[in-house]
């Protein structure tokens, strides 16, 4: 009991010092770990209710991320880790997850496994047991497994691992009460898993290396460190090199011996052993009853269409195209209503002159309204429907169908997800590039994402070109954009150094999307808009009003007229429009209307000018929110390079388009 108290004090201390001091105090901290698609989001939603902030990424702010579970009088913080398959150092996610579990003295790690694929999931469970932290295994989706004729004896599994094993159906909330009890019990007793021995020849060597390790907290748990040393794990080798040269030398020797015996690298030997153990455990706790119906499973039937060489591509076009069209049709309606509603509270106008207070209040209000009328009607519905499609399992099929095409851009099928997200908002789309494996692939994908017309740019294309030229020219701009992404992507692939690796992706069965997962995913994507885009809009709104009041408009127009007038063939007043567009792309319409004093753009601009204007808006520098994200993800040099090259590209393409289109329009 005294231990218990000290432990809780430790938390208070940790919470009280450092940047996390503003976090609410908790009694226990728990993380969810497991493969992708096992129902981690659904579980955290069920445990913590809707009032939670899901941190799907263990970044710098993770101390405060996660939701709070109140159970038996304890406050328990629950943090979600990304879905990973192994603790190797293969991907950034794996590395970060492993460091997170090791460096934060967690009370409980909850390992969620898919009941239908116990063997593969147990591979990761075995790695978790090696970390020697209090562990609970949750066997989720037992209903889907039962439908496939698979039944898991969770008590037998608990017996094998020496910890609590809870069967659940998270999306229906089944097993959550038992899990909550198990969390408190495991946290209080600090129930550690029983070490699962490897085969004799490996286990003996682990023992020898463990014995050579000094009792240094940096190298604990010793067994885990010994195993990683035998696997030649570069990070652990570096760490142990200074503290325990003897153990490192011995581990190298033993690894070589194992490699001589098996003719494979030691890391592969240990993975193989682990799978062998997982297979044995799975077989002993799993009962497979033959299914009566010999029908082809539904998933296979859908896949015959979704992965068909012709119909499959048509389906992708219909689903994504339909999603976009529908979003913008209903979005326009909601947006109009919202603007009317918010304008009635206080007028919205980008150019306010007057006192400093007026500039602050009206400029800020205008920015706030602009953000709200973009995020609420367009971005949220788009991501909501997209998350539903994603949760159904269909996005993985799109990835599979387009994988080969993405190779030409140095990317692979999974990169299609950030690109599609880009049609909503560039900010979360850039952040989602983290799902890619190598630095080169992340950068390439994020760069291409900035070229995709986000909803703000789509609004510009629709209200300038579709309204005043015709819908076909608007569609032509989209088709041109896709071609541009392919060509620029191809060039960037050649220009950027680094490695590209091929795709290996799990293909989940199709299922009906769960509301809680879809909502959580939508929020995970939309929250970056609230934190980054909304403040940028408000501050930008103030800055624009300030620039207007200070009389900066004419000097800006004059300075930019060589580009706007001579190269692009646009009126000089568009200079300031483009400058303000850096804050947010759709403000270009408002500014345009304000400088011309009319919203009937066809009366002041020719069709060619309208098309050139939309084209340049689509391509030139990303908005400041995107630049901000780019700097934090890739550094300011790369962000500056992207902004400069896209601006140059937009001017060149605009100048060429002006001259070509003038010939026949």
């Amino acid at each position: 009991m005294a231990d218990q108290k000290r432990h809780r004090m430790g938390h208070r201390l940790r919470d009280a010092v450092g940047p996390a001091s503003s976090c609410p105090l908790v009694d226990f901290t728990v993380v969810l770990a497991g493969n992708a698609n096992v129902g981690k989001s659904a579980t955290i939603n069920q445990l913590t209710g809707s009032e939670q902030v899901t941190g799907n990424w263990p970044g710098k702010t993770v101390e405060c991320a996660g939701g709070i579970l109140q159970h038996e009088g304890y406050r328990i913080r629950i943090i979600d880790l990304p879905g990973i398959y192994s603790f190797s150092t293969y991907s950034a996610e794996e590395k970060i997850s492993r460091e997170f579990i090791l460096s934060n003295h967690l009370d409980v790690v909850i390992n969620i496994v898919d009941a239908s694929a116990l063997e593969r999931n147990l591979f990761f469970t075995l790695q978790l047991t090696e970390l020697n932290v209090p562990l609970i295994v949750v066997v989720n989706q037992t209903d889907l497994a039962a439908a496939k004729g698979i039944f898991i004896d969770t008590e037998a599994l608990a017996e094998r691992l020496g910890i609590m094993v809870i069967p659940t159906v998270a999306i229906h909330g089944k097993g959550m009460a038992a899990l909550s009890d198990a969390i408190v019990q495991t946290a209080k007793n600090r129930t550690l898993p029983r070490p699962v021995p490897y085969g004799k020849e490996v286990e003996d060597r682990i023992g020898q290396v463990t014995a050579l390790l000094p009792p240094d907290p940096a190298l604990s748990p010793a067994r885990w460190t010994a195993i990683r040393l035998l696997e030649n794990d570069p990070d652990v080798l570096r760490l142990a090199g200074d503290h325990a040269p003897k153990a490192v030398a011995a581990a190298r020797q033993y690894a070589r011996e194992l490699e001589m015996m098996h003719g494979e690298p030691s890391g592969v030997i240990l993975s193989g052993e682990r799978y062998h153990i997982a297979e044995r455990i799975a077989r002993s706790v799993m009962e497979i009853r033959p299914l009566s119906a010999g029908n082809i499973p539904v998933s296979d039937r859908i896949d015959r269409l979704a992965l068909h060489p012709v119909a499959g591509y048509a389906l992708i076009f219909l689903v994504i195209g339909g999603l976009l069209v529908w979003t913008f049709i209903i979005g326009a309606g909601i947006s109009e209503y919202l603007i009317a509603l918010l304008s009635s509270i206080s007028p919205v106008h980008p150019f306010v002159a007057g006192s400093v207070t007026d500039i602050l209040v009206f400029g800020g209000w205008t920015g706030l309204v602009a953000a709200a009328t973009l995020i609420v009607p367009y971005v949220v519905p788009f991501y909501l429907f997209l998350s539903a499609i994603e949760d159904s399992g269909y996005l993985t099929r799109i990835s599979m169908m387009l994988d080969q095409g993405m190779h030409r851009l140095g990317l692979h099928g999974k990169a299609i997800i950030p690109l599609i997200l880009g049609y909503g908002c560039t900010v979360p789309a850039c952040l989602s590039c983290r799902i890619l494996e190598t630095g080169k692939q992340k950068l390439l994908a994020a760069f291409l994402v900035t070229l995709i017309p986000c909803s703000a740019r789509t609004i510009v294309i629709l209200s300038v070109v579709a309204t005043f030229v015709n819908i076909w020219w608007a569609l032509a701009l989209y088709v041109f954009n896709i071609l541009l992404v392919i060509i620029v992507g191809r060039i960037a692939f050649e220009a950027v150094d680094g490695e590209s690796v091929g795709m290996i992706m799990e293909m989940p069965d199709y299922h009906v999307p769960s509301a809680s997962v879809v909502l959580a995913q939508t929020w995970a994507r939309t929250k970056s808009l609230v934190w980054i885009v909304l403040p940028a809009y408000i501050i930008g709104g103030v800055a624009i009003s300030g620039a207007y009041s200070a009389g900066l408009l004419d000097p800006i127009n004059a300075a930019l007229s060589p580009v706007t007038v001579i190269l692009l063939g646009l009126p000089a007043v568009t200079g300031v429009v483009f400058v303000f567009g850096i804050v947010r792309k759709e403000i270009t319409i408002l500014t345009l209307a304000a400088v011309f004093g009319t919203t009937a753009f066809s009366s002041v601009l020719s069709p060619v000018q309208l098309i050139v204007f939309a084209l340049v808006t689509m391509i030139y520098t990303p908005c400041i929110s995107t630049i901000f994200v780019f700097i934090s993800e890739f550094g300011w040099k790369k962000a500056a390079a992207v902004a400069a090259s896209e601006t140059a590209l937009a001017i060149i393409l605009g100048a060429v388009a002006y001259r070509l289109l003038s010939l026949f329009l």
Partner: protein
Amino acid sequence: MALEQLEEYVEAIYDIEEREGTAKTSSIAKCLKVAPASVTEALQNLSEKGYVRYEPYHGATLTGQGMELAQKVKRRHRLLEVFLTDILKIRDENVHDEACRMEHTLSDETECALCKMLRAPSRCPHGSLIQPCNREVADCTDCLSGEEKPSDLREEPIVSVSHLEPGQGGTITFIRGDQKVVQRLSDLGLTVKTVISLIRKAPMEGPVEIAVRRTKLAIDRAIADNIFVSPVVEKA
């Protein structure tokens, strides 16, 4: 029959068989640019030596022995093509003919050294899969790290996952590539001796979908090229 001529015939039959099922005399004659009469004579000769099954008027198919020889020659041909293209930068239009002449004189030792220098390539410059060598090893790491030991020769034929048909399966026996590739695959449960089966291939040389350990994985075709299985003989 000279060795070079024999290998050329076996190679031609292998190619035609892959395209058309059975190699007809006329097809072989066209492929090798010789008279049909000399093809008939050569096929009788090959049949006596046990390389082909020959039915007059119908055509020829390779026997197990013939298939083994054809794959060996093909492997050398394609390795040489990679060498000529990537290292010597020979012009594309000459690469095939050059490799055709060189392939018959290549020793086992040179073949092995070539494979090592080229870091065990998986496809030739024209995109055909290169059969791995027939040594009894689970992966290429020993060879590539320079700690090569003489290995026994493999007895069973092995097939790349990319070449399986939907519904076909087998046991993983060999993974071509360096340690990183092998480790990544083994962490996902694709270890040697694992049973897998091919579900389908995506169109346009896209990824293949395989069933392994009760889950389905989509794998890049270039990675699947390097996973080899001993196929399970199909159940009747």
